[in-house]
């Protein structure tokens, strides 16, 4: 009566180490995990509440710190780059917010399984739930900063046209990539505990190598190389529609290619190592 489906369906769990059917299990895990999004949502909300417990601003601290950064960096770099503030500021605001989101997500992805150790070792759950929890958690944090973009765009009079709606598929691409990275880095970091430090270092380097503070045009002819930077391609799918009147087909193509690549890689690792995660965390 309490769990009618479980009672009547009488699930059968079969596992034969000689025929592990890894692919089938991984796909079933993904499907079951996505169906349990309510659980992932509840856990993600608890995560956020716990992280900012007792804090007055809570997740808005990130908005506040980004706002301060936008003002400070905006004043300095618009002078350095000899650009007008109204031209530079909207671009910087969107850039910084998208970058902070990507950065936090990648750094946090190392914890997607290790952080859920207590649950993984005690309860049989689809591993996808933990990844979904991590993605929703980061999406919720990012959502707190969205008003800041609107404020900056309104203040500088750089209100985008209807093409701004294209930022939504851009955000979807980032979310899909977050899932892939959460699976991929989550698995690797469960096995090798040095990876999170390496990832943090790479992200710091990527911040300077990607056009976050500087505009791609400053590179001149060399800007043609930029699509090889996956962070640039993904950032541009959101930033382009919001402040540059849209992103080029090249950018969208590159972003889609990177997404396909990251999903394939994540799936290969998930299929191969899913059964080992419980032993590793």
């Amino acid at each position, binding site marked *: 009566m309490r769990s009618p489906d*479980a009672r009547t369906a009488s699930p059968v769990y079969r596992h034969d180490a000689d025929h592990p059917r890894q692919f089938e299990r991984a796909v079933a895990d993904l499907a079951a995990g996505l169906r349990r999004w309510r659980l992932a949502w509840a856990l993600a909300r*608890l995560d956020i509440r716990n992280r900012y417990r007792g804090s007055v601003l809570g997740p808005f601290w990130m908005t506040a710190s980004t706002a301060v950064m936008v003002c400070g960096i905006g004043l300095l770099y618009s002078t350095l780059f000899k650009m007008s503030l109204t031209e530079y500021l909207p671009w910087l605001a969107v850039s910084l917010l998208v970058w902070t989101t990507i950065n936090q997500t990648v750094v946090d992805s190392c914890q997607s399984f290790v952080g859920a150790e207590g649950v993984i070792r005690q309860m049989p759950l689809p591993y996808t739930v933990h990844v979904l929890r991590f993605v929703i958690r980061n999406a919720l944090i990012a959502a707190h900063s969205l008003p800041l973009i609107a404020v900056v765009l309104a203040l500088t009079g750089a209100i985008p046209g209807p093409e701004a709606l294209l930022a939504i598929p851009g955000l979807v691409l980032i979310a899909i990539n977050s899932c892939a990275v959460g699976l991929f880095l989550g698995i690797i970091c469960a096995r090798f505990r040095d990876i999170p430090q390496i990832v943090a270092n790479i992200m710091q380097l990527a911040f300077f190598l990607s056009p976050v503070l500087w505009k791609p045009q400053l590179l001149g002819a060399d800007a043609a190389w930029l699509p090889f930077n996956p962070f640039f391609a993904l950032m541009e799918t959101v930033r382009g529609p919001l402040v540059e009147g849209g992103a080029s087909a090249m950018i969208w193509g590159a972003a889609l290619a990177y997404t396909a690549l990251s999903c394939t890689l994540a799936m290969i690792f998930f299929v191969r190592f899913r059964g080992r995660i419980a032993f590793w965390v």
Partner: protein
Amino acid sequence: MAHIEADRLSIEFPLYHVAARSLKKRLMARAGARLKEDASHRIVVAALRDLSFRIQPGERVALIGNNGAGKTTLLRTLAGIYEPVGGRLEVAGSVGSLIDPGAGMDGEATGRENIILRGLFLGMSEAECARMAEEAGQFSGLGEFLDVPIRTYSAGMAIRLSFAAATLMEPQILLMDEWFLAGDADFIQRATQRLEQLVTNADILVIATHDMKIVRTWCTRAIRLEGGRIVADGPVADMIGD
């Protein structure tokens, strides 16, 4: 019908975050221990080795053996947490596990929120969960404390809540660690009733325990594990006498 069938079931834990090199030297010196090197030269603990058994509906099985014999690992494997490294395992029927009462509890959330969370972990809908929280709240007798973060609870209160939340399900196969039968003296009377009901409604009970009293009152069959192997398996009366 619910049943459990294991055929040469093996579980090995890799040991990664220890000094594998010095461990290997010691392994060379002492052959036959539970630590061994696997095919890809990792040091592994053979937690379960070649277990074969079949549990029929209606059986109440006690897993007995010393600490580290593999009882809890076997429970976790049956629950589907660890995937077998070798052999075959078939578990037919809905499984409920009472392995760690605090599993999935969040210290910052209130008692009620934790019960709802547990319901979500078990795959219930939110409406079901809210109803369940009411029932579990009454059962645990926590009263107004139900809406206070559980990090402020006393140990006894935490146990009551965990117990109430963990016994929300009605599985066909119930996996239990003896932990669940230890606890607050006040509470033990009602807890026992609820457990009895849970056990009676389940088709199969597998319980890991040291306590022979529990084995005698609750079980029909005992499996003795030693060093990850089954050393004896039979009716309770034959296994532990009176």
